């Protein structure tokens, strides 16, 4: 089995293509009226980057991907791949999926069971009118990339989940597309294999320099793989940015709540401190950066692992809260601690000593990572 490292990248790429989607809208008309699935979705995936559509199920991320692929047609908007316009409602352009020159890995892998591994991988070369030698060498090269060269004659049904995934990847890459679409490609693998494939996909993408559009509902996967994440909800793009920015400094409340664990503590804005505001909560006063709105009713947001144990004498400082330990769970690397006061609860991730339930506890929150959002009608996350 040859390693991916000693393999040359694709030849003949003059310029890697970007993916550009502008104001994509789509509604399904069913028996009970029409449902909007995409509402003016716009984004641009930079050439050679991994661009991820992330969101809860039903948020429109898969529909968006399928529109880019040409498997579905938006009602309105425009899609460009590089300088090719492949869809435009205004100009009446709709290029079929088979003419977009994309590679795609499906959620179910969609390995054709009546073919061998080699037949599966060589299929996309059928339309290219290649000589037999060139064809075989391309198939070989694609299978080498995913480390499955030895299985070229294996019937497709006799593959494990991980092998099917690699075949799907080889098949998507064999025609040397500049754009690779990945629809939840890791969701059918077990945890260990998922971790391995995640690294492998990222390495391959870097080596080949293709632009990858990746769809997932798994935030951890998105954070690990992406150069840029577009977070989607209810058919709209909520926020676009690099993983770190979305995780640490989200602009939107939905982003803060969707990515990772989050505390939203109800409070009131009582003043200003530096470039932020001070919020009064049941646990104490905290400073944080203000995100939106000017109303005094606000929610303090911070992540459980951005809190630490504080010495008692620091109570009253602008980053320290106090409460009673309500529940503790030992997690190994850290402890999950629920602290309660006046009917409000916050979750903290505190390594080290496991606090006793009923114990009084002071905690400090890193003001760098405290944000203040406008109060929402939704109940705060525990």
């Amino acid at each position, binding site marked *: 089995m040859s390693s991916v490292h000693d393999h040359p990248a694709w030849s003949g790429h003059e310029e890697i293509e970007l993916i550009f989607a502008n104001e994509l809208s789509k509604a399904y008309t069913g028996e009970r009226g029409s449902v909007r699935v995409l509402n003016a979705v716009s984004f641009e995936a930079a050439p050679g980057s991994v661009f991820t559509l992330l969101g809860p199920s039903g948020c429109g991320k898969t529909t968006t991907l399928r529109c880019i*692929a*040409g*498997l579905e047609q938006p009602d309105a908007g425009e899609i460009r791949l590089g300088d090719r316009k492949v869809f435009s409602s205004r100009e009446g352009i709709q290029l*079929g*999926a*088979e*003419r*977009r*020159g*994309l*590679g*795609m890995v*499906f*959620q*179910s892998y*969609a390995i*054709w*069971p*009546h073919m*061998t591994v080699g037949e599966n991988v060589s*299929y*996309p070369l*059928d*339309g*290219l009118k290649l000589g037999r030698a060139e064809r075989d060498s391309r198939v070989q090269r694609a299978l080498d990339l995913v480390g499955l060269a*030895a*299985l*070229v*004659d*294996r*019937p497709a*049904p*006799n593959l494990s989940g991980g092998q099917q995934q690699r075949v*799907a990847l080889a*098949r*998507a890459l064999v*025609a040397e597309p500049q754009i690779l*679409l990945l629809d939840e490609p890791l969701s059918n693998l077990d945890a260990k294999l998922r971790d391995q494939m995640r690294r492998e996909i990222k390495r391959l993408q870097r080596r080949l320099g293709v632009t990858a559009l990746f769809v997932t509902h798994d935030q951890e996967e998105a954070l690990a793989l992406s150069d840029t994440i577009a977070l989607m909800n209810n058919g709209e793009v909520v926020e676009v940015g690099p993983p770190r920015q979305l995780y640490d400094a989200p602009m939107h409340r939905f982003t803060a709540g969707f990515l990772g664990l989050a505390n939203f503590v109800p409070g009131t804005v009582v003043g200003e401190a530096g470039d932020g505001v001070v919020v009064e909560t049941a646990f104490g006063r905290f400073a944080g950066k203000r995100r939106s709105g000017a109303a005094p009713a606000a929610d303090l947001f911070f992540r459980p692992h951005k809190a630490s144990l504080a010495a008692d004498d620091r109570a009253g400082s602008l980053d320290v809260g106090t409460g009673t330990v309500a529940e503790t769970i030992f997690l190994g690397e850290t402890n999950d601690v629920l602290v309660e006061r006046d009917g409000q609860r916050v979750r903290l991730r505190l390594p080290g000593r496991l606090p006793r339930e009923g114990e009084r506890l002071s905690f400090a929150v890193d003001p760098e990572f405290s944000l203040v959002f406008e109060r929402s009608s939704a109940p705060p996350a525990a």
Partner: protein
Amino acid sequence: MLAFAATVLVLAYLTLVPLALLVYGSFIDEPGRLPIEASALSLQNYVQVVTDPATYRLLANTAVFTIGATALGIGLAVAFAWLIERTDIWGRNLLLVGIVVPMAIPNMIYSSAWILLLNPQNGWINDLLRQAGLGWLTFNIYSLAGMILVQGLSLASHAYLLVAAPFKMLDPTWEEQSAIAGKGVAATLWRVTLPSLKPALLAAIIFFTVVNMETFDVPGTIGIPAQVNVFSTMIYAATQPEYSGLPDYGLASTLSIVLLLAAACLIWVYQRQTRHAKQFVTVTGKSFRPRRISLGRYRLPLTAIAFAVVAAISLLPVLMLIWRSLMPFYMAPSPKALGLVSLKAYVDLFAGYDLGQVLRNTALMSITAGIATTLLAALVAWLVLRAPVPAGWRSMLNRLAFLPMAIPSIVIGLSFIFVYLTLPIPIYGTIWIIAIAMVTKYIAFSSGMMMAAQMQISPELEEASRLAGAGWGRTYRRITFPLLTAALVNCFLWVVIHVVRELAVAVMLYSSRSAVLSTKVWSLWLGGWGAQPSALGVLTILALVLLLGLPPTVIRLRRKLRDLREAAAVPAEA
């Protein structure tokens, strides 16, 4: 899409055109003339049908026959499905084979075998009863009750296949829960098992009511000599000069429309019922070990009864048919008569008759109809489920393909006479008109079969091909079609088996040069049930048994081939 429009046109040609001519024909009251030759339209046929008391006798006969045969057939099927699938009765596999054997016996041949057993003059069972001094127990098959008996018994095997699946899938914990609650076997069957299967059973009942209402074989074989007419035999008789002087196509059309409307109503209820049935959760994806109800002290007597019934349904008629085919003239089975056994009838069949042509016709007609129906059904299935056209169009296509379900065979036959004596397509009197009529007859069932198969193919398999640069055509040819192979073969064999069995369509459309097996047996039978039609019946059954045995063989073969391929692939891995 071009393929979509073409398919709609083909289906419309196969169903709507014949129906339109049938409706037109019903307004013509000029016996001896075809609709196309008529000079004036009239409501006379409808007046006659409504005012003639014979119509109401016909209705009553049809209703009693239909209800009686459905009750007997479904009752037997349910009893056997429960015994075989849910209890620890002995010899389950043998019982299963026994119950499905009549599938391979065309109903006309099946009724003939029962005539040999139960006719009032020298029916073997009646003879035995008289010899035993039980003359009062003899049964005259030439009666409505006789028709119900034969149709019900033959229906049991078809119905078994339909009702056994839900019995098999039923979650056994439901029955166990009832047992824990202190209910006995009978109470559990009555209070839990049957009610939870109600949607499936109701669908089967409605479906077979339609089948019985339109069937021609049994009423044609037993009812016509007994002068007990139902709609299908009446429509047939109206077109045959030997029964009615001049063929009265107008009256036949009007009767057809009455029958068609009744069938359409039931099919509508059936569709509603089956759509509704999906909402009942009887079949879960959850796997469970099949657990069987212990019959306890009833195990032995129930086994004995079940085997006796299966012997009566399957073994007895077939043995009688074989016996008759070996006798130069009728002799009751006895050791003494064994000396008369001869294969003369079989030899004569091949020597004296035009059997070669009949077999060629049958093969050509059934294979053509099988291929055409299967391919059209596969196309319909793909278009209904996957075509990139608005959902409303696809459901319209679905309804159009389902429509023939409501058209009785005898009505298809009649309307095809009209079509091909009207249109300038010179196939009347050839096997091709029969083949096309068979496509109409079986397109609804086969489309359903192919849709089930198409649904098994994940859309992503087709989409992956499109992303790989293949258009719709290449995707269908390289991906969809190969993946449908097993379903296509099954569907083809299913159609061929049914086409060979089908009498009503062929009997309306055959001529001396386009005779097929079913019509050959029929015309031999018209000349009296002797050794030769028995022999031809035995040969037909043999051929159908072989065809029925094919699909499992094909599946086994495919599995073997795959294993071989796997074995060959192993060294490459090392």
